[in-house]
Structure formats: structure tokens, C-alpha cells
């Protein structure tokens, strides 16, 4: 169990959400024009990333809206979420998947002091 950040409602328990699989997979514009292999690729082929993964979530029990999020698939820590149509945020290159964007900010500010 982990926390998910809804772009509107904020950090909530994962049980309030539904998972929607990998994000940013565009449906072929002309399904009739492509081969079975290409269609199969669209339906089934996924990155199966170990590390930072862009994925879709729905705040089913809350506002009911879909959004995208970046999650570390090893630690299950969500970095940040972003609304549909927005560009994905970029976690720092050395992100170890242990802190979310908000904690990371706080830790960085603490280190400066």
C-alpha cells in the first residue's frame, strides 16, 4: 500500500484510486491501415520499466478524474502527478525512489539551512 497524489485532492491512500496502466500510449489514428503486428504492439507491448514509470491513475472514490503520475516501480514511491495533457515532471537524475517531490523539496531546503 502506498500514497498517490491526486493533482486536485492531494496525497491520498492508494485504496481510493484505480490503476490505468502505462501512460502516453497513443491509439493508432487509422486502425484499418496498420498490420496485425502493429495493432498487437499497441494493445499488448509495454515497457515493464524497472524504475521511473509514467502511468495513469483515476481518483475513483474521490473526484473521479483521470491523471498521469510518475512512480518508482521498485520502491512504489510516487514522485509527482500531472494532469492529462500536461508534460511529465522530471525527477532529479539521482532520484533513488525513496522520497516524493514534496519531501524531496523539504529535504533540499533543510540541507541548505
Amino acid at each position: 500500500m502506498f500514497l498517490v497524489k491526486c493533482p486536485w485532492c492531494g496525497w491520498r491512500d492508494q485504496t481510493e484510486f484505480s490503476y490505468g496502466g502505462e501512460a502516453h500510449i497513443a491509439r493508432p489514428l487509422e486502425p484499418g491501415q496498420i498490420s496485425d503486428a502493429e495493432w498487437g504492439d499497441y494493445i499488448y507491448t509495454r515497457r515493464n520499466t524497472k524504475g521511473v514509470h509514467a502511468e495513469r491513475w483515476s481518483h475513483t472514490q474521490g473526484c473521479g478524474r483521470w491523471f498521469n503520475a510518475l512512480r518508482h516501480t521498485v520502491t512504489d514511491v510516487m514522485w509527482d502527478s500531472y494532469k492529462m495533457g500536461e508534460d511529465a515532471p522530471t525527477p532529479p537524475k539521482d532520484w533513488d525512489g525513496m522520497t516524493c517531490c514534496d519531501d524531496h523539496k523539504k529535504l533540499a531546503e533543510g540541507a541548505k539551512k
Partner: protein
Amino acid sequence: MAKASSLYPGITIDTPLSGRNPIQADGLVVTELPFLGKITLRGDAADPAFAAAVKSVLGTDLPTQPMTSQRVGNTRVFWKAFDEWLIWTPEDAEQKLGADLNAALTGLRKSVVDVSDYYTILRIDGPRSRDLLAKGCVIDLHPRAFHPGQATGTGFHHATIFITQTDSDVFDIMVRWSFADYLWNYFADGAREWAA
């Protein structure tokens, strides 16, 4: 609790928790608020025409911040999503309000749906209300995190609920008709710990 229908003479209408007595415990009372009108409104709050038309009917601006609400008399307007609001009206006032909203929003992109009979509302009143809700609710209801007037959809065990804090120790919980009995039994069981 049953009553005669105001729309259909001779027909008795009922609530999902008909026949249940209030749950009473030390510092806790759970009752049903039956027959309140409930309307789901959808549209684009950023469209000035939509915002103005809704305001002309409701007498207040739509809440546009997540988890907030507005109150006008006995009517309460809740933010449900960035393009969706929930309106609670006094008993039997929902039909006129729905018709007024539809009339004011003619020609605009909108959805006005009467969901009064799809849900019922439970009220938890008393200093133990947070303790009871902590038995199954996943959000933080501590006074530093949740205030009167705030409202949000969340879960209570397997039930999807919409919860709002009405007063310092009073929570109103909207739940689907078919889940009302489940939730009521959970509250009754949870309250046994503080049986009077």
C-alpha cells in the same frame, strides 16, 4: 422512515435505513438525514456565462477550490471535481432547483441530474465522531487537517462515501442507497465500544 410522496398521491416512499433507530453511544449519535434533495451539476466553471448563470440560481459562486463548499440557507454546494458539483437541498426542493438550473443554463454545455434517490445521508454527531470514522475512513480528519465546510469523496472500508464536516464534531456522509445498510451496520458495530 417512510412518508407519503408529494408527487404521486397515495404512494408511500421510503429510505434505505427505514426502521432503524439512531445509533446512540457515549459521545456519539448516528442518524439518517432522509429525503434531502441531491443534484449533480457539471459544466465549465471557467466559462463566465456558466458561472454567472449558476450564481443567478444558487445565489452564490460555485466553489472552485478542491474539497471546499458553499452554504446558502439550507442549500449546500460542494466541489466534487474541477467540473462537477454536488448540491444538497431541503426535502422536495430539488425538482424546482433542477428545473431552474436547466432553464438558466440553456444553450450552455452542462449536465444537471437529480440523484436524490441514488444516495442517502448519515449524520455522525458527537465528540466520538472522529474515533468512529477512524475505524474505516482513510483520510485524515484531525482538526488540523479537516475543517467545517470541507468535503471530499473517499472510502469507508468497501463503501464509497462523500464526507463533509458540518460543525466541529458533526460529519455528514453521503452513501449510495445500496451501501447504506453496510455502512450503518459498520457504524453500529464500531459504536459498541462506547455503548452507553
